[in-house]
């Protein structure tokens, strides 16, 4: 007893501290805000590294003929671009947001497991140093696509074990992040906040966290089998030894499809927070939104084979996966309709977060339409592995996931830093991004339909025109993002003082707006009451 008492006293004393001084604050960080900040800055860095790789790709594709890089290096760029953007940019950015916002939104002082939080972040720099390091070893970086299909992925040189281990580390980091989110949400909500009173962003992250825990071990298993096939004589995926290369694809996409929703469900949450604020009207159909999110999560486990319709599945299998995939359009449609109904008869203003949210609404829906087209198996036999697919998933991931992250940054940045950012520049960033993202990706629909395969460094001259437009869009979009970095860092350094509510719309609702801007170091030291 006495011991416990001393511990409590020490703990209380500790709470009076602000952040530690110097580098120790970051290395030994246990504070959810510090860790959230590190996650997001890390993801911003990865966004630029992955973006630079995309520009290498688009520069080579600017015109037919090989002008800049070897085909092998080109393949390394497409592979690394995907791995870095998915695991390094989008996922850590969402985990960073979860770190910052979940304790604030549920009325908790911090995340439930702060030391594991530290660990899950600090794994990432090592994982990505190793992944990027593959570019400098004999045989170069992974060049078989981010999907790592065997037997091709087995042809990688010394980078192979580095790739596998890096993927393992990223997975471990994600699982720890997900555990932390679930434990925090389940145990640390303010009194009175029942599950169906949680902010929608918290809901989407709760479901995302379960998806992560369900599928990350599957990915780990798949890449471990690749590893043992490579070094220990197993033949899981080698036909010569009785294995099946297609089995890898089934396992991979059993991870891969929920992974797609891991990258979009939190985006749904963000947009569902922002649209009501700037429409000055409550979110339409909160319950329906929660159920739709849960339905999408459930369906994500039974549609994986639509990524591989051309591998030669039985007819019944193709039918099942086609119908299940088409079903996803229903809850996704419900979401889009609910967002529209939220704006309907509202009083809408167009601050930068709302601009990005509206852009998300339109452009994500376009990605949804092409997704519906891709679900139709016979048509997919034409679309599969063409630029039509590239256009589709970039529409849902760039103006989808990435724009939602921009919207989130512009929405909560004043809350995080205590400063308003430069609205004019942010609006300029929005217009540049929205225009160029369409110049970049819309022509890729045409290229795919006309017959251009994806993952090729050179193409027949009939594809020259739209490729050139697409490359121009790529450079425009990429350079515009430098503006985003500038706006964020300028806002961290200073600016007009933000109020506690930040936005003068009467809304926003939510516990985060009851705190000061920036919030105290240990967010809610006494739990707020939720009615």
């Amino acid at each position: 007893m006495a011991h416990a008492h001393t511990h409590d006293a020490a703990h209380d004393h500790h709470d009076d501290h602000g952040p530690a001084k110097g580098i120790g604050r970051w290395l030994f960080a246990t504070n959810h805000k510090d860790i959230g900040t590190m996650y997001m800055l890390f993801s911003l860095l990865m966004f630029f590294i992955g973006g630079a790789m995309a520009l290498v790709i688009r520069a080579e594709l600017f015109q037919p003929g090989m002008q800049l890089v070897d085909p092998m290096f080109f393949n390394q760029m497409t592979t690394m671009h995907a791995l870095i953007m998915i695991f390094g940019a989008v996922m850590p950015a969402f985990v960073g947001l979860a770190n910052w916002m979940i304790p604030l939104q549920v009325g908790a002082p911090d995340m439930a497991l702060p030391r594991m939080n530290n660990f899950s972040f600090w794994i990432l720099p090592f994982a990505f140093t190793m992944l990027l390091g593959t570019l400098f070893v004999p045989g170069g970086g992974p060049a078989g696509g981010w999907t790592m299909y065997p037997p091709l992925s087995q042809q990688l040189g010394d980078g192979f074990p580095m790739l596998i281990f890096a993927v393992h580390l990223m997975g471990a980091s994600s699982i720890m992040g997900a555990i932390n989110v679930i434990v925090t949400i389940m145990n640390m909500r303010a009194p009175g906040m029942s599950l169906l009173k949680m902010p929608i962003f918290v809901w989407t992250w709760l479901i995302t966290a379960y998806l992560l825990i369900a599928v990350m071990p599957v990915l780990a298993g798949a890449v471990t089998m690749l590893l043992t096939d490579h070094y220990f004589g197993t033949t899981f995926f080698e036909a010569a030894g009785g294995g099946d290369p297609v089995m890898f694809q089934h396992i991979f996409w059993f991870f891969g499809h929920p992974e797609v929703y891991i990258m979009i469900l939190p985006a749904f949450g963000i947009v569902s927070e922002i649209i009501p604020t700037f429409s000055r009207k409550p979110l339409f159909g909160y319950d329906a939104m929660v159920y739709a999110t849960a339905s999408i999560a459930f369906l994500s486990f039974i549609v994986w084979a639509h990524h591989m319709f051309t591998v030669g599945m039985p007819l019944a299998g193709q039918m099942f996966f086609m119908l299940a995939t088409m079903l996803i359009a229903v809850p996704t449609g419900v979401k889009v309709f609910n967002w529209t109904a939220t704006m309907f008869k509202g009083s809408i203003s167009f601050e930068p977060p709302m601009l990005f949210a509206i852009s998300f609404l339109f452009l994500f829906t376009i990605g949804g339409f092409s997704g519906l087209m891709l679900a139709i198996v016979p048509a997919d036999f034409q679309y599969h592995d063409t630029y039509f697919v590239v256009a589709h998933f970039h529409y849902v991931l760039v103006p989808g996931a990435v724009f939602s992250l921009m919207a989130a940054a512009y929405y909560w940045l004043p809350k995080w830093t205590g400063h308003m950012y430069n609205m004019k520049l942010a609006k300029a960033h929005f217009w540049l991004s929205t225009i160029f993202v369409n110049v970049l990706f819309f022509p890729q629909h045409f290229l795919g339909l006309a017959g251009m395969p994806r993952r090729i460094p050179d193409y027949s001259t009939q594809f020259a025109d739209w490729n050139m437009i697409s490359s121009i869009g790529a450079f425009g979009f990429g350079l515009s993002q430098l503006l985003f970095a500038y706006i964020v860092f300028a806002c961290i350094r200073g600016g007009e003082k933000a109020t506690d509510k930040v936005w003068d719309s009467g809304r926003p609702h939510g516990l985060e707006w009851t705190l000061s801007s920036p919030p105290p170091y240990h967010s809610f030291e006494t739990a707020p009451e939720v009615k």
Partner: protein
Amino acid sequence: MKIVKYAAAGSLAGAAFAPSGAALAAWELNMPVGVTELSRDIHGLHMLIFWICVLIAIAVFGMMIYSIVKFRHSQGAVPANFDHSTKAEIVWTIIPVAILVGMAIPAAATLVKIEDTRDSDMTVKVTGYQWKWQYEYLDQDVSFFSTLARDSDHARQLDSGVDPNSVENYLLEVDNPLVVPVGKKVRVLLTSHDVIHAWWVPAFGMKKDAIPGFVNELWFRADEPGIYRGQCAELCGRDHAFMPVVVNVLPQQEYDSWLAQQKGGEQAAPAAASAQTVENAAPATAAAAE
């Protein structure tokens, strides 16, 4: 305006890099209609779903744009306070389900047709290699490799100095095309020697993976003679972009004489093949000359 300006600048830059003055190809927007029944069915499905999406887009985007324009804070719009409607949720769940069923029925019918490989007139076994195709005519004792044509292969080297626009059918030409008769149901068996490839001819509407250790099948029946071009569609390593698929569909008679000539002498086959490279537009003539 800005986009137009950038596009113009881009074209100028492109012209500077490629001073051949060769006319650029058309600004293709849509999936071309193919030359097989399946490809026409697929094109029909594609257009059907596309127009359904357009209609939904008009309704949904129309509503969004209406809300954005009509209910602007700057115009003094006063927000309503409603926040749910079970009736609306049910309506916009049921209607999409109905639309999806409408799409699924024709899609399923086409899919059944695609998977029906019975009663074929002939069978060709296609084997993917890094980075070429092998074609074997089953029961005919005819077999050959099909690799990227030499002029394309030269032009596609890094800094070759050759303008791709000056190469006819750049990256879409091979030394020995697959030759099949018109109007016959051709069954294609697909497998691979090394990694996974995918055999694809857009005009036939079909694409399928060639997987080591496994045999996949697809079929097509070309309605018109002609040369149809496609590419490998599954990332297969360094030269994935450089293993095109070219199918030469010949009238039955010309096909028969081509086949007889192929079978005529194993030794003569390669010579005939190289003759075809030169005279690819009229391989029958080349065969006759031999």
